[in-house]
């Protein structure tokens, strides 16, 4: 195992820039790391070794000529398998798209390559990005590097497992409910769901009009995430949801700390299922941020208690276009729950959608009022650590949840994160502790729209006093 694979991006990027290490050396090491660990993890089912090495040679040739594209230049990275790469199969985790070769690059792939990064291949994901375990995929289940009997979370589970185990420095995931933050939390790494509109969705498949979906980075450290945002964020006219806004420098003010920031611990909704060991880790993180100079207060967001009604406002949209497939090619769905949720979405009616949208706007007003004088919200990312792959009933604070019953898996894997998709606010998950079983626990920090730099700054401050990234057993 090559230790360079675990370096911070700022450090390894500098070594590449000064040619102390070559991109070919790093990409070769990453390919060897995939070969050594992926039989256990199944995080990187599509690897384009020859193409990656050719691009690494080109990256080295540019460096030899004095052309340095930035901190990602020459670094091996991954992308989730619902992100288009020209000439590569893009399956969205579904057998229905087993032969689906995309003939263009997603905007985020263009930007990664424009920044000099070398895309190694595709990371595993949950079928259609419509559930949060990463058990069901055309490539088979992804396994958690902290305990391979447990789920990675999802749907970007392959991305989180890959960066946790040193297969890549960063991987780009997508997040409509939890899919970046949930696996980041379960695998002990950092995942940012940016403010909607900052990272182009051009080339994210399926090309739905779901306004609550975003792309964002998963990496081992907050600084790595910030440096990746510097490379991938920006207006793209090909994405109708892209926002032309003042360009932020995500990594520039990362070390400015939290002194003077007001951080609100949300005390309702987020703890009804949350296990005591998770709540205790989050409480300790709030205390650590207070010790760093933040003003930490406790708040309630009353409208969150109506979340199940609000969620129905966007229940059907991204399933609508899959309805024909669920009817005509039902036997090709791997996860019955996804197929039946899609079929049930056909019964959503417009009056209900309008009613739930009005209730959502009431929640939005409440949060906007709260965040006029509150910089960040603080919550757990998940109620529980990653559950066992073969689990049916998952213990929560009181009782258990059947993850195979309608709504069961979502209650465990998306309930604490999805409100911030509905609110289109930036949210990050950072490691904040470990369960008694030795599984990672995640802290969620949420900021105002377009203040992703502040979210990253607070996460960075906490990371330096919290557990931060630690190597999972599979790569010790």
């Amino acid at each position, binding site marked *: 195992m090559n230790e360079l694979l675990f370096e911070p991006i700022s450090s390894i990027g500098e070594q590449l820039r000064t040619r102390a290490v070559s991109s070919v050396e790093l990409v070769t090491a990453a390919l060897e790391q995939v070969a050594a660990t992926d039989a256990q993890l199944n995080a990187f089912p599509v690897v384009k070794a020859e193409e990656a090495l050719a691009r690494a040679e080109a990256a080295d040739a540019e460096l030899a000529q004095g052309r340095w594209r930035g901190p990602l230049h020459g670094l091996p990275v991954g992308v989730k398998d619902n992100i288009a790469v020209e000439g590569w199969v893009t399956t969205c985790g579904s057998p229905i798209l087993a032969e689906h070769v995309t003939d263009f690059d997603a905007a985020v792939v263009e930007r990664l390559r424009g920044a000099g990064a070398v895309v190694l291949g595709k990371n595993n994901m949950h079928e259609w990005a419509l559930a949060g375990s990463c058990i069901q995929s055309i490539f088979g289940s992804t396994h958690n590097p902290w305990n391979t009997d447990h789920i990675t979370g999802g749907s970007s589970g392959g991305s989180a497992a890959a960066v946790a185990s040193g297969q890549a420095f960063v991987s780009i995931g997508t997040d409509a409910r939890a899919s970046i933050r949930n696996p980041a939390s379960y695998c002990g790494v950092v995942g940012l769901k940016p403010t909607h509109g900052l990272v182009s969705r051009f080339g994210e498949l399926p090309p739905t009009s779901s*306004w609550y979906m975003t792309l964002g980075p998963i990496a081992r450290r907050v600084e790595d995430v910030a440096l990746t945002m510097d490379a991938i964020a920006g207006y793209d006219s090909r994405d109708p949801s892209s926002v032309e806004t003042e360009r932020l420098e995500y990594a520039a003010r990362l070390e400015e700390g939290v002194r003077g920031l007001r951080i609100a611990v949300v005390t309702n909704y987020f703890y009804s299922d949350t296990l005591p060991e998770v709540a205790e880790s989050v409480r300790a993180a709030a205390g650590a941020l207070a010790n760093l100079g933040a003003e930490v207060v406790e708040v309630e967001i009353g409208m969150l208690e109506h979340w199940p009604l609000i969620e129905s406002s966007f229940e059907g949209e991204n399933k609508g276009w899959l309805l024909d497939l669920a009817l005509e090619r*039902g036997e090709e769905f791997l996860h019955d729950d996804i197929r039946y949720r899609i079929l049930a979405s*056909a*019964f959503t009616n417009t009056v209900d959608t309008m*009613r*739930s949208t009005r*209730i959502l706007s009431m929640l*939005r*007003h409440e949060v906007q009022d709260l965040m006029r004088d509150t910089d960040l919200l603080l919550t757990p990312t998940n109620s529980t650590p990653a559950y066992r792959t073969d689990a049916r009933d998952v213990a929560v604070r009181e009782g258990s949840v059947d993850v195979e019953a309608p709504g069961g898996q979502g209650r465990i894997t998306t309930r604490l994160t999805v409100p911030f998709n509905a609110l289109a606010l930036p949210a990050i998950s950072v490691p904040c502790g470990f369960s008694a079983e030795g599984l990672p626990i995640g802290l969620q920090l949420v900021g105002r*729209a377009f203040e992703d730099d502040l979210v990253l700054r607070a996460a960075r401050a906490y990371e330096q006093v919290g557990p931060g990234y630690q190597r999972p057993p599979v790569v010790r």
Partner: protein
Amino acid sequence: MPASDDLIRQLIEARFAGKLSPEEVETLLPYVRRGQATSERLAAFPLEGLDPRQVAYISDKRLTP
């Protein structure tokens, strides 16, 4: 009043017109029942008389960064 399982079966049959097997209809039934329960709760939510200042007419913040 909650829709009966028989009524939900009829809804499914009407919507999907024989494209699902009886077993598939039975599997789908609790999903649709769950949606119907949400619909009833939505209908009961007191939206009438809502203070217009509490309604976001432009609800997508990406439009007003």
